[in-house]
């Protein structure tokens, strides 16, 4: 009798231990699961809303499963698909070209600044650093871009501003500075010129840093919409993020004018169409990121092992 109850108690204790142990082992996972759900649900809501009938959307609000399934929103957008396809083309072009050129220019500059035997090292470093602290402000920037460089309404206007980011140059310079001078001297003894040393010695050694900066630069270009806001009027040159911004803010502006301006406006793009637009604009990028994040993460952390 006693042994039985003792055994029972013992088993109970073991059960509790098992549950507690399981909880302890998986607590982190549970927390992470909740957090990732919190991140995912808004995305799912957008996708669901984009497939919901417009009227039903107003009546029933946003639901995780479309209350009344409809592809009307996508049909509306794809009546004129060139806009969104064009925006994709522009964004991809700007990101690829901008990142390639930008990373190359920044690493050349950073490498020169990292060499202790470079005569202009100090004044040049100061110039780079100075732009981080002070800038002329938006109006001189606008005047430079439009009246001196005449870049308004051109793809170049989207690429130029992010080609060299002072902060990234400093990061790269610090990394280049860790390359032993002996290595460079050895290359020179072997008969390599400066450019050869940069291309064959410095650049390969700085791969982790360059991968990181390339990722940052690419994200800058991908997410940039303010440059287009300032300099682009031609709808054929709208990048993706700016197109999204315009679609959204056009709706707000139209409502403002009918509210304030005592004026009637044409039909306003509907809620589900806006959601469909968001899905089309972010969806492919998100999928792309899923497939490539492995490489990106490896690129970023590569430096940690060396």
């Amino acid at each position, binding site marked *: 009798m006693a042994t039985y109850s003792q055994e029972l108690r013992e088993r109970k204790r073991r059960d509790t231990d098992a549950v507690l142990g399981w909880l302890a082992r998986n607590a982190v996972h549970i927390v992470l699961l909740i957090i990732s759900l919190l991140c995912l649900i808004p995305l799912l809501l957008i996708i669901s809303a984009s497939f919901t009938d417009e009227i039903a959307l107003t009546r029933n609000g946003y639901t995780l499963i479309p209350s009344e399934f409809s592809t009307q929103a996508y049909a509306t957008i794809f009546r004129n698909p060139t806009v969104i396809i064009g925006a994709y083309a522009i964004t991809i072009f700007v990101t690829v070209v901008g990142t390639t050129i930008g990373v190359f220019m920044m690493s050349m500059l950073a490498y020169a600044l990292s060499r202790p035997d470079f005569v202009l090292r100090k004044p040049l470093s100061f110039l780079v650093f100075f732009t981080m602290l002070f800038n002329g402000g938006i109006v001189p920037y606008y005047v430079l871009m439009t009246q001196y460089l005449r870049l308004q309404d051109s793809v170049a206007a989207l690429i130029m501003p992010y080609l060299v980011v002072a902060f990234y140059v400093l990061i790269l310079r610090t990394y280049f500075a860790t390359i032993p001078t002996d290595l460079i001297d050895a290359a020179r003894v072997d008969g390599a010129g400066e450019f050869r040393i940069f291309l064959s010695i410095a650049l390969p050694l700085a791969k982790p840093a360059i991968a990181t900066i390339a990722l940052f630069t690419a994200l800058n270009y991908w997410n940039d919409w303010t440059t287009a806001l300032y300099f682009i009027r031609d709808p054929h040159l709208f990048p993706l993020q700016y197109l999204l911004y315009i679609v959204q803010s056009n709706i707000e*502006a139209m*409502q403002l004018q009918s509210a304030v301006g005592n004026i009637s406006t044409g039909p306003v793009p509907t809620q589900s169409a806006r959601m469909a637009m968001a899905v089309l604009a972010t969806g492919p990028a998100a999928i792309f990121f899923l497939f490539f994040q492995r490489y990106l993460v490896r690129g970023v952390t590569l430096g940690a092992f060396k």
Partner: protein
Amino acid sequence: MKKLFAILVFVGLLFAMVGGLAAQDELPTLIYYFPGSPQTDVATVQEALSDYLAERIGARIELRAIDWGAFDSQIGLINAAGEEYDLAFTAPWINNYFTNVSEEYLLPLDDLIAEYAPGLWASMTPETWEAARVAGSIYAAINQQIFVKPFGPYIRQDVLDAIGMSDEFNSLTSFEDLDPLLEAVQAYVDEDPTLEYVTYGLSGLSIPEIWGYDPQDFFLAVRTDDETAQVVIWPETDEYSRAAEMIHRYYEAGYAPTDVSNWAEADAAWQAGQYAVRLVDIVKPGGNAEVEARWGVPVYSHAIAEPVLTTGGVIATLTGVSSTSQHPELAVQFLDLVNTDPVFYNLLAKGLEGTHWEWAAQDDLLIQPANGAASFGDTGYNPNTDWMFGNVFNAFYSDPTQVGAWPETAELNRNARPSPLLGFTFDRSAVETEIASISAVSAEYADPVNQGIVDPAAGIPALTEALRAAGIEAVRDEMQRQVDAWLAAQG
């Protein structure tokens, strides 16, 4: 890599050169900025406009539409950078007119209009022009449209027909007489499963205009029948108490959803048929047709508020001439033409006959999309913003139900009683600090009262106290001082 960059720079330069070449025409080209989505066929229309202009005033025109969402940012930069252009849309609500005047981005036009745009000047009364006057000068041409705000309720046809109160609806003379009507609508809403509320937002009832006041900014107002123009603090008036009491009563009765809504939600809910009455909206000629065309909801409407000519109503849509313009006299001649010549104006607002529109009934000035297009949106040119370009009373009708609305609207404008403050604009520079504090009060204390969420017996004293603490009396006194000086100057 370097080559690629060189190519890019080269491409950039090429763009610049092409731009430079286009500008080298023998005739001067007027550059005209306005908000709107760039139209597919803008080049054809621009060409036709230029040919028309070249014959009459010896100039060409370049239309530069900037998307709505980008207009304020881009025109702000263009102005600040001193970029050369000639004409731009301006208003208190976008590309701010008063900022443009105080920053000297716009040219004073009095002399130019007198010399080059007599037709434009004659198209409106001198009192109307006063509204555009800032610190003694007129800085923009007024795009004539509906100036007055005859506020009143809109009600869905099916609902009003079902409750059979057309006579009561059409004989309303005060918003305070709405009670029996709204009670009947509520009873109907209870029966009808598709309708959820009587109305959507109650705050419209707190608009000073419907209670006989001309609202100035920052909770200040002047009675429209007060010739001495005493500036009062709107929440301290008897009318405001009555409005707040009414709103609160409706709120308690469940006439509107309790969660605060914005314009977009209200419009979407209206389209979805969730409510029956828009309590306070502008009732204008052709308004019912417009509501039906936009949302597919047949409605009745009835104007209650007396139409009053206020500064805000008149200058809602303006076209200014840039101070960087090289040809201000040509720009003003353009304004004259676009406001007085229906052919030219409709070319700009509606596009080319035969390409974008064709006559449906020429005697009625009614047009339809050209070549069997389903809507004007499919024709390649449909800015759909007649009021942006000039006198809308010269516009062709694009909807049969609109026919005849312009003369009626013009009549409404002409017969409206001018507010004692018509033409007065407040210079806020002396009281900027107080104004900032007052703006902060609005959301916390005014919105709950205006939406009926709090009992006005407690809400209004809290609001007025907060306003006084924020320094509204100083603003009122400053405004009164300026009003008195302005009245004295008027003689």
